[in-house]
């Protein structure tokens, strides 16, 4: 065991830093052309535009330590926004289960950030119990296309998506994990209706999506009919480890401390208040531990291919930490935490702080509610079989 970064790793970190420094947006530069140019340059570095993709598909083939360095540095730097749906969620499925033609057709556009994807999984009756999904896909008599009918819910950014990857039911005669089929189709077509859901923070990110007789060519099916659950399950695990966001939380924690220090109390500031300081301290301790849990998980994955049991707690701890940061921002805002809307009264960080806290309640619900996550840990890690859920 050695906590020091090797000289190669240090050199890598410096290289990453100077890349970010050299490619910062310049004042007056158009954001969207800067964004695309940034990814192009990252690509020229040897797959830095797709850090998590395997080397075979153009990724950089980094070690766990290099990934860790990258995550830390990206959390601090100003880099262009990126969406996880195509890049981090669908791409691994295509790589593992898509045929050559599908890989050639979809991966380049995902890599070039040309096509926005959304994820059609949850349904009104299928939340934590995702396999209970009912959106029906019926194969035509000539076997050339499916007709899709049903509804999806909590579909993030469906209103700006070009394509959807969607779990559908093609057979309900067996257990519910069977008979699920994984389809890809364009969002902008007749028969698809997207309705906004406004969350407690007052924002529109998620939607309901209704399908009425949507035709999907059979070549847009990933893998075999009825095997979609197997493909999605791997992806769900991918999603779960990606939700911890610890490096970002570390940056936000420092911001939180700065904010609290800006609130004058007597001869000191809010960080001198023992109750508040204790909560910030407890949060930081949790973060220090969780960060190393993540590193251990990365290391064991690199050594054995499978993430170790410690990885199962990452989503649980990571989301809870993010919520606590939001809550402490609300507390730091004091009386101004109850102001709503764009106007912004009180300290500058108070604006939007409460909306952020309210929306953050979603973190322990989406991608597998914490209660379900714990059921999985109980069953898969501790070997406790007497639970109701799977």
């Amino acid at each position, binding site marked *: 065991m050695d906590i020091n970064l090797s000289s190669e790793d240090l050199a890598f970190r410096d290289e990453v830093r100077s890349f970010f420094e050299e490619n910062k947006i310049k004042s007056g530069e158009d954001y969207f052309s800067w964004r695309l140019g940034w990814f192009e340059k990252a690509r020229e570095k040897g797959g830095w535009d797709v850090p998590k993709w395997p080397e075979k598909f153009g990724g950089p083939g980094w070690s766990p330590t290099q990934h860790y360095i990258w995550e830390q540095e990206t959390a601090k730097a100003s880099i262009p926004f990126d969406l996880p749906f195509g890049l981090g969620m669908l791409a691994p499925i295509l790589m593992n289960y898509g045929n050559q033609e599908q890989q050639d057709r979809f991966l380049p556009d995902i890599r070039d950030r040309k096509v926005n994807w959304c994820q059609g999984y949850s349904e009104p009756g299928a939340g934590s119990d995702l396999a209970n999904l009912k959106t029906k896909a019926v194969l035509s008599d000539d076997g050339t296309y499916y007709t899709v009918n049903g509804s999806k819910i909590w579909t993030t950014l469906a209103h700006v998506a070009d394509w959807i990857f969607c779990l559908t039911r093609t057979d309900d005669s067996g257990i519910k994990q069977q008979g699920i089929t994984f389809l890809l189709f364009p969002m902008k077509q007749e028969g698809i209706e997207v309705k906004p859901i406004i969350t407690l923070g007052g924002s529109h990110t998620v939607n309901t999506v209704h399908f009425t007789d949507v035709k999907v060519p059979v070549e847009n099916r990933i893998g075999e009919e009825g095997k979609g659950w197997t493909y999605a399950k791997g992806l769900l695990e991918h999603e779960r480890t990606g939700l911890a966001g610890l490096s970002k939380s570390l940056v936000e924690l420092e911001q939180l401390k700065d904010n609290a220090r800006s609130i004058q109390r007597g001869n000191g500031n809010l960080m001198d208040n023992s109750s508040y300081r204790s909560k910030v301290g407890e949060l930081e301790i949790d973060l220090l531990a969780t960060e190393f849990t993540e590193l251990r998980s990365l290391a064991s994955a690199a050594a054995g291919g499978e993430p170790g049991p410690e990885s199962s707690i990452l989503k649980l701890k990571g989301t809870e930490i993010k919520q606590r940061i939001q809550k402490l921002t609300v507390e730091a805002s*004091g009386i101004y935490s109850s102001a709503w809307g764009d106007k912004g*009264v009180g300290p500058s960080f108070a604006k939007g702080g409460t909306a952020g806290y*309210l929306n953050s309640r979603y973190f322990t619900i989406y991608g597998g509610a914490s209660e379900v996550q714990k059921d999985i840990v109980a069953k898969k890690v501790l070997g406790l079989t007497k639970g109701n859920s799977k």
Partner: protein
Amino acid sequence: MNFELSEEQKMIQQSVERFVQENYDLSNRIKISEEDPGFSKEYWSSMAELGWLGLAFSEEDGGFGGNQIDTLVLMEQFGKGLVLEPFLANIVLGGGSIKRGASQEIKDSIIPSLIDGSLQITLAYAEEQSRFDIEDVATAAREENGGFIINGKKSMVLNAESADKIVVVTRTSGSQVDEEGISLFVVDADAEGIEKENFPTVDGLRASEIIFKDVKVESTSLIGEKDKGFSILQAVVNDAILALAAEAVGAMEVLYKDTVEYTQQREQFDHPLSDFQVLQHRMVDMFMEYEQCKSLLFRATMETVQDPSLSQRTVHALKHLIGKSGIFVGESAVQLHGGMGVTEELRIGHFFKRLLVIDSQFGNADFHLDKFTSL
């Protein structure tokens, strides 16, 4: 000891409960909240007609001679519907200040109009730097030509948008954080030099930042003695804490009951959610917090009615518990409703927001824990 409400109080409780059931479903509340002035003038008149606005005023002032227990009865039911009408600002804060220290002349000119619902008033106490310390007052009232000139800025003033009168907490002597040297004045909301910036709050109510620039008031507008306003302010704030706590208890009852009902209906993994022990225990915790808050609410209210000089510590305890438990119950209700809980579509999110705001008003859970342990 007796926890029974009087016959009259029971009747009022039932009539408020009916009012809330008939008038405060979620869509109606949202509609009222979004339209100006942010509450229903019609409902406000009904509340006046039903006598609710006069309950907490003495018979000499034209009221019904009730006390904080009557306010508790009203506010707990208001909490079950997230009632928008400005009872707290008018009756507890503004009216509470007037009834405690104003001259007979001011009382006569204001209280009857508060009771019949024709006049709107509020209390401007918080400031940018004060956070939760009510004695931290920088807004200055300087004596000049037998009157006073007020300069300063007040923050998060409830109901100021509709108020005809504002009770403003000022400093007339001493340093910025002295209890001594605080004076309360009642001023016309449209007096020269008053500038308001109105905005909505997280819970669908309204508040304002108010700038006072060379605002002239007569010395007859003073409430209580000059420099001695702190004790009035403290008593009013304690009443406000009791009232908000009662409202919070009503809101928590809705949250835990809605959650119990929802988990019995919603099925996942071929079972109602309520079959899962981990969720059952969470709901038991919500129920326990609600009951404990109710107990401490009764305790603090009854102690205050008995002798306000002995109840301060319990009032701090109450506001701590209400803040902490309210947010726990709110967060739990959202968690157990899953994705639906995080939307504007179900009422539980709105109740959660109200509890969040209540924690931030008149001192949050941390603030009152510090106060409690230092007394």
